């Protein structure tokens, strides 16, 4: 089931993919480079929305909507609250990133990492197509598996969330209630 | 007892101290007695387990790996939890657990500043795991992990509990706190060596895929490939070089030795003892266990260099000792010389030489361990290690003086004490090295080594003269020095007895090693 680049170009779905992937990447790029902290976090929404759209496109509808709800709905708000609380400088600010002495090696590292992995991926999976007849995953099917096969990990995750909740409160609470902030 | 033979015995010996470390962490800091007893119980249990290994060990086939187990560990890279002991590693395993118990006993009432026994004991326990583990590991990854486990606790031990005096570094004119300088130096040197060692291991791993269905880190499989001559040419050359760097730093061989005097001098007493008694042996053991069986041909090619460096170490270490004024530093440099004899034995690649190396390692562990205990206790009482200020110790603390005399005599290789066998047999081996090595060169090395024994006697007598004899200086008049106390006796008497026992009855060590070494040499070099 290999496909050549020409064949790839003939498929409409791939243009949809590109239309989703490019904003995703651009959003990610802005998250790591933007000089405005609020904007950086908002660009994260773009990236996450892009990924959610890709999930839906792949038929993983439940996952996609979960991303939208949990991430875009809750996590981003958490981030914004974090920014407010820590009195991070609003507006454009150069100091959000390290100077070029750090940026250049980091960029080099990222590029090398990308090249190596991408090369390896292309080498291994290049041209293997995802079966076109793949249907959407029904949420019910997913639920069955979760609550049968994966029920223990599921419970563990719930415990993790609970302890994170407790831990978050414990950490964020003031050490000494008597002492004024 | 089947469970014990199937790897659990070794696992107990190795990991009981780790359990001890965890338990220690759970005990509150303030309960010092509980902490001490916990450490003693767990190290004692590991020691008992180590002794039990002796009972289950089949002495009719010391050349084979016994009591071990081979389990899947990291499947992706075929790294395995493969452990086991043979006649070469078992004495060293027992030595490690033995010394650990003594160190815990000694530390009972000798706490270096800053106090904190909880952390210190936990570190000792972790070090014990690394030491014993290194001697039982038969998988290169496992070996590497254990080898490195030792590093960090030791770094902290030197860096936190070390000597706070100021070390002046010439040439660059720095004045640095001794413990910082020494711990960093120790860390960087060892890390430097380890990096090369890891490279060597990886290279062997990838290369093994050319000959086997699956790439392997297993020492025994690699040794089989090695004795079949699979690793050859420039590949083998560079791999041996990488391994050599890694192990030689640990030994340490001249000129990679300079971390040793600093680390030994700066470390707290128990740290020095562990360093000298066990850690140095990791390097020499690795030469015997890894370099020679896996790369026999290269071992042959490199033997002359190892021999020459070893002898330079002997002479150089002894001469450096003669110029010392710091007692602990003198003992530290003496280790360079003694490990030179061990390496000379290994360099001959004969069964006599490697036997000599192992018995030399055990003896050095016992004797130099005792010397560092003594130096530490004396420094604790006098608050100085400067031999110019000491003197007349026999008057102030006669028992300590006699013990120091005993240890010094043992260290200079007095026959019928443990230190003699390693030195004498290493010289003996270098008269007739392995066929194919240059006998003329090695005979020259033998003569130089014999001169080294004379110099060794010279500095040891000189140390005794300046520390033990003469009238004590006015500085000490009126001080009430308490002589050896009960805990010190508990920690030292076993070393004294073991030194004498190995001296007059070397079969205690040779009974393990001789067949094993003969087989190892036969497998590696044929015949």
């Amino acid at each position, binding site marked *: 089931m290999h496909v050549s680049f020409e064949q790839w170009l003939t498929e409409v779905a791939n243009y949809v993919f590109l239309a989703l992937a490019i904003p995703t990447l651009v959003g990610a790029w802005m998250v790591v480079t933007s000089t405005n902290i609020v904007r950086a976090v908002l660009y994260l929404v773009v990236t996450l929305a892009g990924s959610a759209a890709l999930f839906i496109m792949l038929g993983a509808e439940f996952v996609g909507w979960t991303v939208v709800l949990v991430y875009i709905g809750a996590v981003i708000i958490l981030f914004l609250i974090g920014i407010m609380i820590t009195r991070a400088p609003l507006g454009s600010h150069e100091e959000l990133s390290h100077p070029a002495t750090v940026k250049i090696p980091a960029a080099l590292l990222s590029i090398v990492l990308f090249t190596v992995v991408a090369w390896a991926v292309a080498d291994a999976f290049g041209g*293997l197509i995802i079966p076109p007849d793949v249907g959407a995953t029904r949420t019910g099917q997913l639920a069955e598996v979760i609550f049968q096969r994966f029920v223990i990990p599921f419970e563990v995750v719930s415990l993790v969330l609970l302890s994170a909740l407790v831990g978050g409160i414990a950490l964020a609470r003031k050490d000494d209630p008597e002492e004024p902030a | 007892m089947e469970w014990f033979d199937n790897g659990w015995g070794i696992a107990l010996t190795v990991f009981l101290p780790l359990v001890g470390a965890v338990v220690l962490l759970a005990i509150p800091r303030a309960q010092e007695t509980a902490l001490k007893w916990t450490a003693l119980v767990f190290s004692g249990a590991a020691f008992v387990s180590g002794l039990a290994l002796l009972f289950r060990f089949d002495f009719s086939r010391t050349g084979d790996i016994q009591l071990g187990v081979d389990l899947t560990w990291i499947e992706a890279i075929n790294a395995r939890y493969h452990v086991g002991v043979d006649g070469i590693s078992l004495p060293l395993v027992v030595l490690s657990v033995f010394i650990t118990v003594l160190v815990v006993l000694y530390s009972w009432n000798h706490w270096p500043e800053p106090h904190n026994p909880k952390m210190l004991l936990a570190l000792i326990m972790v070090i014990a795991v690394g030491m014993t583990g290194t001697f039982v590991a038969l998988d290169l990854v496992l070996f590497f992990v254990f080898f490195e486990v030792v590093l960090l606790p030791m770094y902290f031990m030197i860096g936190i509990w070390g000597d706070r005096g100021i070390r002046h570094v010439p040439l660059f004119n720095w004045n640095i706190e001794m413990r910082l300088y020494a711990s960093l130096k120790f860390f960087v040197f060892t890390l430097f060596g380890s990096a090369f060692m890891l490279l060597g291991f990886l290279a062997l791993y990838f290369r093994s895929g050319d000959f086997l269905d699956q790439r392997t880190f297993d020492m025994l499989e690699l040794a089989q490939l090695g004795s079949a001559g699979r690793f050859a040419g420039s590949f083998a050359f560079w791999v041996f070089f990488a391994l050599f760097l890694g192990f030689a730093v640990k030994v340490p061989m001249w000129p990679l030795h300079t971390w040793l005097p600093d680390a030994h001098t700066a470390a707290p007493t128990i740290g020095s003892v562990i360093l000298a008694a066990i850690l140095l042996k990791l390097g020499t053991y690795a030469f015997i266990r890894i370099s020679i069986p896996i790369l026999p041909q290269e071992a042959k090619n490199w033997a002359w260099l190892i021999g020459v460096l070893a002898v330079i170490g002997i002479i150089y270490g002894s001469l450096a000792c003669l110029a010392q004024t710091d007692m602990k530093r003198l003992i530290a440099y003496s280790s360079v010389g003694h490990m030179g004899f061990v390496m000379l034995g290994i360099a001959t690649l004969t069964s006599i030489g490697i036997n000599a190396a192992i018995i030399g390692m055990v003896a050095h562990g016992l004797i130099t361990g005792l010397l560092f205990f003594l130096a530490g206790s004396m420094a604790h009482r006098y608050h100085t290690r400067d031999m110019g200020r000491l003197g007349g110790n026999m008057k102030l603390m006669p028992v300590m003086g006699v013990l120091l005399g005993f240890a010094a005599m043992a260290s200079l290789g007095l026959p019928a004490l443990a230190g003699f066998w390693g030195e004498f047999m290493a010289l003996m081996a270098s008269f007739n090295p392995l066929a194919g090595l240059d006998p003329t060169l090695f005979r020259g090395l033998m003569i130089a080594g014999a001169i080294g024994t004379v110099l060794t006697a010279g500095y040891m007598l000189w140390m005794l003269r300046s520390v033990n004899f003469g009238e004590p200086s006015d500085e000490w008049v009126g001080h009430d020095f308490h002589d050896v106390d009960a805990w010190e006796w508990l920690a030292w008497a076993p070393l004294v007895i073991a030194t004498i026992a190995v001296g007059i009855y070397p079969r205690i060590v040779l009974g393990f090693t001789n067949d094993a070494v003969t087989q190892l040499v036969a497998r590696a070099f044929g015949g």
Partner: protein
Amino acid sequence: MTIAQFVILGTALFSIGLYGVITRRNAVLVLASVEVMLAAVNINLVAFDVYLADQLYAGQIFTLFIIAVAAAEVGIGLAIILMIFRNRHDADVDELDLMRY
């Protein structure tokens, strides 16, 4: 649709996220960069799940788990940042070198 296009997209996102983790000075933004990396991983998991037509939907379920854990992580992470900010009045990771010897 090929599998490679999704995986390479994931790789690119991951690399960008790594770049962010290294270069960002503000702790909140470091966390955001970590989220980008997690998103990259999620894309990989789902793509392979679909490609393999897994009957257990392991890839998708793991993605759900990751989302849950990531939410917890952000919560804890922000709480820690808050703590640090309270103690040091700064959320600049540059100053967070307590782990130095």
